């Protein structure tokens, strides 16, 4: 049985659990280093990246998480998760130049239909005070852009989106993560 850990310090972790459970996998919440055993994959949810970063540091989770990701643990980060994964001094899972709150303040938050490389159907993407990637490294593949801002990408075992698939009923992206990163079937 596939088991996915979801970082549950702050943010929309229950929403990710609902999406993953709908696809038939088991989920556990990660709050301490002890919760990092026997995981087939990891999800870093949307939330406040500065808060999550401080809590990761305070609970001594930053180093063990970074190590697991570098060892190849399949990892999916959304919004704040993208920020943490692309900051070199945080989790450093994807090479890229991240711009926090890149689309503006809450007033400018938006929904749009997004075409992603690798997905059959357009995806209902919810952007909330969202970041974007200005550039990514040569090992990364861009999956979607809005006005030349990279909003979805992957690199080796890491998948990131600037928007929140956990806020919609569409499970295409969670299924994509499970299929191409976790089970590789």
């Amino acid at each position, binding site marked *: 049985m596939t088991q996915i850990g979801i970082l549950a310090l702050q*943010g929309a*972790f229950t929403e990710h659990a609902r999406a993953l459970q709908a696809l038939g996998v088991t989920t556990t919440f990660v709050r301490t280093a002890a919760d990092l055993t026997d995981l087939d994959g990891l999800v870093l949810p949307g939330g406040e990246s500065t808060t999550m970063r401080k809590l990761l540091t305070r609970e001594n989770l930053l180093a063990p998480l970074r190590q697991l990701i570098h060892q190849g643990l399949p990892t999916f980060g959304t919004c704040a998760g993208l920020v943490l994964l692309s900051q070199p001094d945080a989790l450093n899972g994807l090479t890229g130049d991240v711009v926090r709150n890149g689309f503006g303040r*809450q007033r400018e938050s*938006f*929904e749009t239909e997004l075409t992603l490389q690798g997905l059959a159907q357009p995806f209902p993407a919810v952007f909330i005070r969202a970041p974007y990637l200005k550039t990514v490294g040569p090992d990364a593949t861009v999956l979607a852009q809005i006005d030349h801002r990279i909003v979805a990408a992957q690199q080796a075992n890491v998948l990131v989106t600037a928007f929140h698939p956990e806020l919609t009923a569409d499970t295409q992206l969670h299924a994509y993560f499970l299929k191409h990163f976790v089970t590789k079937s």
Partner: protein
Amino acid sequence: MTTETATLKVKRGMAQMQKQGVIMDVANVEQAKIAEAAGAVAVMALERVPSDIRTAGGVARMTDPAMIQSIMDTVTIPVMAKVRIGHFAEARILEALGVDYIDESEVLTPADDNYHIQKADYKVPFVCGCRDLGEALRRIGEGAAMLRTKGEPGTGNIVEAVRHMEKVQTQIKQVVAADPEQLMTIARDLKAPYELVQEVHAAGKLPVVNFAAGGVSTPADAALMMNLGAEGIFVGSGIFKSDNPEKFAKAIVTATAHPTDYALIAKVSSGLGNAMKGIELSTLTEAEKMANRGI
């Protein structure tokens, strides 16, 4: 490709991103920096914390936009600000300023004793206080995208917030357990929109996030509220009226993120110094109670 701003999902989703976090009242740039460094998920910019509003007396209004702007320029986390109940002009000003969330708040002196703001009409989402499920659903009906208990602001006394959270949770259970044909009578008794009562019955929960507010002053208070069903915490006077704001802020953030890890909460609660002094509620007159404000 159609792009839409200010949708229900975007407004409610913003509050979902704040879950299991602490939103802190701050009265200046220095306090905002302390809150952000402690791990707050947002700050609430206001002229005075609620306990100082009580002391100062007089009419409490929206904060000077220049002060809110200076805080928006300082921190990267979301900035919220308060308007008086029913004061739609103050709300339009905050919307024009670009704050991330507006709190239509009983902490300020109400501007309208008949009507709340029609919150669905704004680009910026709103949070409102509630004492029971009826009040919660009326606010959602007007367009609130986030709720919080009212508690009794500025008292450092958690008892009212506990009452409000327990009441809402109990009433949700009653709505869920009811038969569909009972829902109209329940809606009448709660003075709540029927469609929203149906929605709670079907979903088993509120359609928006519900935080605790009003009287949280220690890490243990935060843990108590999280275990009663709060999805996050607002702290007003509790941080900057304590002996050591930096330590209190950090400890309350940790307790909110780990609400059942009591060994950890014991550790972060140790040697904090004095919490805010607080007020026993029986010493307040009915007129002095802020929770009674609003319709």
